């Protein structure tokens, strides 16, 4: 619902009566002639479109996650090799390579995994809603 523009400071318009309609939930809803799940099952063009969109979303998510997390971790040897001064740094009394590779990468992996599971399940939920709603 959009609110009409009104000048700042103006009085709010008087409350209006709005008619709210809803389907009579008791009565059986007219079944759609072709639910999307059936389109998918029967390999129709429409079903293929549904599936392609799901696969594309999930593939993009998975590849993006791998590229970002594994890519940045895999960049470390290059950094250590090109800038030995970085490798010689110490943090909390530990040499930086030890701290990063021996400890900090693991929480990063778990966090990335948690993020992925959340996003992947959300993608599937949205897909399920799309299919069931139609």
């Amino acid at each position, binding site marked *: 619902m959009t609110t009409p523009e009104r000048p700042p400071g103006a009085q709010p318009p008087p409350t209006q009566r709005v008619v709210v309609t809803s389907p009579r939930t008791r009565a059986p809803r007219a079944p759609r002639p072709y639910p999307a799940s059936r389109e998918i*099952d029967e390999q129709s063009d429409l079903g293929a479109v549904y599936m392609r969109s799901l*696969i594309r979303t999930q593939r993009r998510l998975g590849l993006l996650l791998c590229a970002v997390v594994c890519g940045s971790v895999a960049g470390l*040897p290059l950094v*250590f090799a090109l800038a030995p001064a970085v490798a*010689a740094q110490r943090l909390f009394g530990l*040499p930086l390579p030890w701290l990063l590779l021996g400890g900090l990468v693991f929480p990063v992996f778990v966090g990335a*995994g948690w993020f992925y599971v959340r996003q992947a399940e959300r993608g599937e939920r949205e897909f399920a809603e799309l299919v069931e709603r139609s």
Partner: protein
Amino acid sequence: MSSTYGIIAVLAVAVGTMLVGAYGLRVSRTTSDFFVASRTVSPWWNASAIGGEYLSAASFVGIAGLIFAHGPDMLWFPVGYTAGYLVLLALVAAPLRRSGAYTLPDFAEARFGSAAVRAVASVLALGIGWLYLLPQLQGAGLTLHTLTGAPDWVGALLVAVVVTANVISGGMRSITFVQAFQYWLKLTAIAVPVVFLVMAWQAHGARDLTGPELPVFPRDTTVSFDTDTSVHVDRPVVFHGAGAVDGLRVNGARVLEEGDHAIAAGSRLVFPEGAAVPRMSSIPFNTNETWALPTRDGEGFPLYAVYSLIIATFLGTMGLPHVIVRFYTNPNGRAARRTTLIVLAMLGVFYLMPPIYGALGRLYVPELLMTGDTDAVVLVLPGRVVDGLGGQLLGALVAGGAFAAFLSTSSGLMVSLAGVLSRDVLRQRDVRGFRVSTVLAVLVPLGMTWLVGKVPVADMVGLAFAVAASSLCPLLVLGIWSTRVSTVGAVAGMLAGGVPALVAGLVTISAGGGNVFLARPAAWTVPLGFVVMYVVSLMTPRKVPPGVNHVMVRLHAPENLGLRSQDRL
């Protein structure tokens, strides 16, 4: 170290494993129980089981030994083993479970509907499994040898017998209990001693681990040599003892000058406190300071090798047959993802420990640099750092944990190998076929331990990862995410990646070293496998399996939609 407690611990683990397995037997009845535990394993159980199975000899003793000898470059092993699960989670976990297959060849058939693809996948799965099983048996031999001085084959045989008995009696259901139990056992066995080790190190004055000097003997140390050893002396050292050095019999005090020396098997030499430790010739020269830094390009372990290792471990995990088979035991794709996430956390916690052993080993057991038994650092360290009975008990705990590592990884490999053998080679899909296959699955690597000599555990495991990453990883990733892969492309890609990786690895191992491009082939064989699979597929569009869209629905659609395409076994 006292061997009595260690032997008791190893026997306790062996017996405990049998008991837990026997408990599993009582609930294991059907064929489905045998192969995939009837798919009723909850994420926590399954994650513990995967962790238990995955943390092998290489993880429990190998990583600490490598770090001890070579420094932080070796941290890429645990990082890669863990990152492999992240890649698995993001690209493979849920679709693999939804494919509804029992073994990797089953996946190949479900996806491609082709006997040829299935056959190639079976051969690769068997080969990779055996490559991985061999070092487990050898590692068990090493552990028992370190503990008791028993010949190497005793440990290998003990592991083989316990595991075979367990797998034959209970199959996957029983193994799931055993593996889950063994993850927690291993974590306890490696983490509890760490607390005492660090406390003892603090109490000894927290000596600097990264000072500019060479490792020195912390006390007068007797070093026994089991094999002929070539050592390099960086600072002249006076020793006494009995044995043969450079072909001359020694009895009494002598000076070892700077340079290379050959020490004969059976020598027992005593080195004084504070002397710089000679190193085995194959271990590079490092003061504690240079050891603690990542090596730069061109020195011993060049950047290419690091990247090859990263590629092999990041992508190879998903191709290991015993890892894959675990996903089929999840009830659905969603549970498969959650399981993998828990596994990531469990591996992360475990892998915090081995570097601590490796680093403290430089201070307390540097003589292992001289004998080359670097894999023993985890086993020997607790008894050396903590005095008295406490140290002995901690040593026993670690020994038990190491043995659990061999048992659990071997069990997992045996289940997956027996699954492939019984379904693809013997073609008997019942419980009897599974049992016969189990015996076959263990006899091959057991025979190989006698045939091949001593190959470093990490090298064999590395080879298995490289082959898996170059052959089965492209099959899984492209098979799951691309509809264009044809049967011809799948076979061509698996062979184009897997065969060069295997040949390069075997050549390196039989030659005992060599060119880094052959020793660590993953950096070129993995892209080769992917490119060949995709390009050949694009060239043979008519060989794309006809029902590919149907299969894609099964792999990717969430189960709760109630699609008929997903109805399965």
